């Protein structure tokens, strides 16, 4: 428990922050719109290879952000599985014996997979895309795990690690390929742009799904510990 003075201080701090922030937002809202970025985006959308502007920004105009963001995900996944030191990531406690639930799942899982596929495909011209599809995949996995369906592919082994970086690696290779072709890093060749984006998205979906799932499943349950440096 914090002391009352500290609590009041915190409250004041938060209030002050809110007030200042609100004032700033209000003031900024009074300004004339300064940007013509949406218009620029519209102008160049045709050249981006996809019709949906958000996807165009994510995978073409600002693809470097997305590349690094996947890297952030991979890092989190890595840190997650580095903590898991058991051979299997399954949690026997969670195995269900409810037949009705199993039957339900038998229908639900393929349906969700289908939905993920649709989201991926829709990303090109409608809302949707790799992240949403990946999240859907992961949600399917979570469901399977919560009900105890086996997730053998999630053993911390080489296969899991390949799966984690598959999308990222393809993204990176495409970036490199365009650089080798003499252009800048990540610049897609005009004629393949749609196909490239779609294939990147597909693998990304798989990887993102696996990463999110691995993060969820990689609950550290073990006793291995290392002595502190110098205290051997």
């Amino acid at each position, binding site marked *: 428990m914090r002391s009352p003075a500290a609590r009041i201080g915190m409250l004041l701090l938060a209030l002050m922050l809110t007030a200042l922030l609100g004032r*700033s937002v209000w003031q*900024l809202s009074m300004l004339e719109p300064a*940007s013509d*970025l949406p218009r620029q985006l519209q102008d160049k959308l045709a050249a981006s290879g996809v019709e949906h502007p958000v996807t165009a920004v994510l995978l073409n105009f600002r693809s*470097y952000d997305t590349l*690094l963001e996947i890297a952030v995900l991979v890092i989190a996944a890595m*840190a997650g*599985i580095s903590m898991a030191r058991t051979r299997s990531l399954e949690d026997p406690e969670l195995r269900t014996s409810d037949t009705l639930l199993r039957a339900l799942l038998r229908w639900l899982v393929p349906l969700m997979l289908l939905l993920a596929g649709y989201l991926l495909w829709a990303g090109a011209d409608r809302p949707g895309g790799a992240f949403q599809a990946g999240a859907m995949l992961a949600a399917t996995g979570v469901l399977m795990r919560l009900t105890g369906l086996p997730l053998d592919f999630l053993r911390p082994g080489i296969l899991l690690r390949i799966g984690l970086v598959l999308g990222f690696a393809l993204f990176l290779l495409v970036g490199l390929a365009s650089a080798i072709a003499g*252009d800048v890093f990540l610049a897609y060749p005009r004629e393949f742009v749609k196909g490239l984006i779609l294939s990147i998205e597909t693998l990304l979906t798989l990887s993102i799904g696996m990463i999110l799932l691995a993060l969820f499943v990689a609950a550290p349950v073990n006793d291995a510990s*290392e002595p502190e440096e110098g205290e051997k």
Partner: protein
Amino acid sequence: MSNWLMAGLLFTPLALATVSLLLGFRQGRALSWLGMLLQLLVSVGLWWLVRHEGGFYYTLAGWDAPLGIELRVDGLVVTFLLLTTLVASGCGIHAGFYLEPDRPWQRYFWPLYWFLWAGLNTVWMGGDLFNLYVGLELITLSAVGLVALGGQAEALRAALRYLLAALLGSLAYLLGVALVYGQFGTLSLADVAGQVRVSEHALLMRPALVLMLVGLALKTALFPLHGWLPPAHGIAKSPVSALLSALVVKASFYIAARVWLEAGVAVASQWMAQLLGVLGAVAIIWGSWLALCQPRLKQVVAYSSVAQIGYLFLLFPLTFGVEASVSLHAQQGITLQVISHALAKAAMFLAAGNLILAVGSNRVEALAGVSHFLPFSLFSFGLAGVSLMGLPPSGGFAAKWMLLQASMASGQWWWIMVLAGGGLLSAAYVFRIYKASFLERDEQDHFYHPDRRLEVAAMLLALASLGVGVSGSQVLSVMAMPFEEVQ
């Protein structure tokens, strides 16, 4: 030429991270040697290019800012890229022989290491405020992962504390970015800098500036937001501590400095600048004092980082509302401080790791008598200490000299006192270590002899920190190279 180099620079760390994730520690290590060599070639190549032809913008994915992301490559950036290569390679080589290869979780060291490197490169070159945010997060998460890797409870606690602080800092920064985007409708720092100077409502940027600076100060561990740093840097494995102290905290400071110099000085107020300076000054004094009181060797070095980071924040008062020449002096001084502290602190942590390995304990008193068994590492520690104390002939001295000159010329004499006092205090904690190691005790007779290669890595970095001191002019001359403004 520049396209190839840039592609190599961006691709190598990410590719190395990917491939080494699929390998074990030993194969990853072998591959990493190759990666370090590549990075060295590429960064030297870029440095050479900029030195002879001046800086340039690199438009990623072929889309110009503000729609696309542009990287800025100028003299300062190539210097930092080269610095990163040197320091990170030094730490990497050290780590390659320092970490126990047979632990199952060590295989994740190399991927994290290379992702960290990629994040650093991104931040040095970043010209897009949001891209900088992603770069920062890349650095933060890989750094947290490295601290926690295979760690015990204490390491986890430190990593958690670090994670929470760093995330809050990033989000504060991102909030600032959101306000900037709301005001100027662009994320490109160069655009913002241009608009701030013509817009009549420029002063409305102040809250955004404050938020960014506070967030970044938290990530840089400026007093009083430094609480997370000593545990994290003190408990991590020595090569990791070296990376964190030498480079990671610099990344967030670098962004703060870029934002400040390009847009901040136009909208800030004197009290903001002075407040940041005062906090830096308190950090110098308080951090040094705490370093003096620590019983553990690595905690001493970690608190010393808190103090040394304080010096960096003198940039703000010394560049606000002063003549251009004074501001230039201050910027040069801070640049030298970043470079020399990076080299010296990395050397110091690596040497501290060797010393700990040799005496088998992290305590300062345990060092008694080590001076005739491990003079090489002790010597590296000493040389690095020279730079931290700001004594000649070292980069730390050169930096201090420039800062003193800038304070003198701007009439802000109070910083002179801080600089002088801080130097003496840091001498106190550095000499405390020397003193402990010179003490002769009869019973302490056998020490473990670490691998020679571990000692060489520390030594080379320490020598480099001295080298900065005698080649300050050359180092700074690259930064003065012309930069073509692309509009």
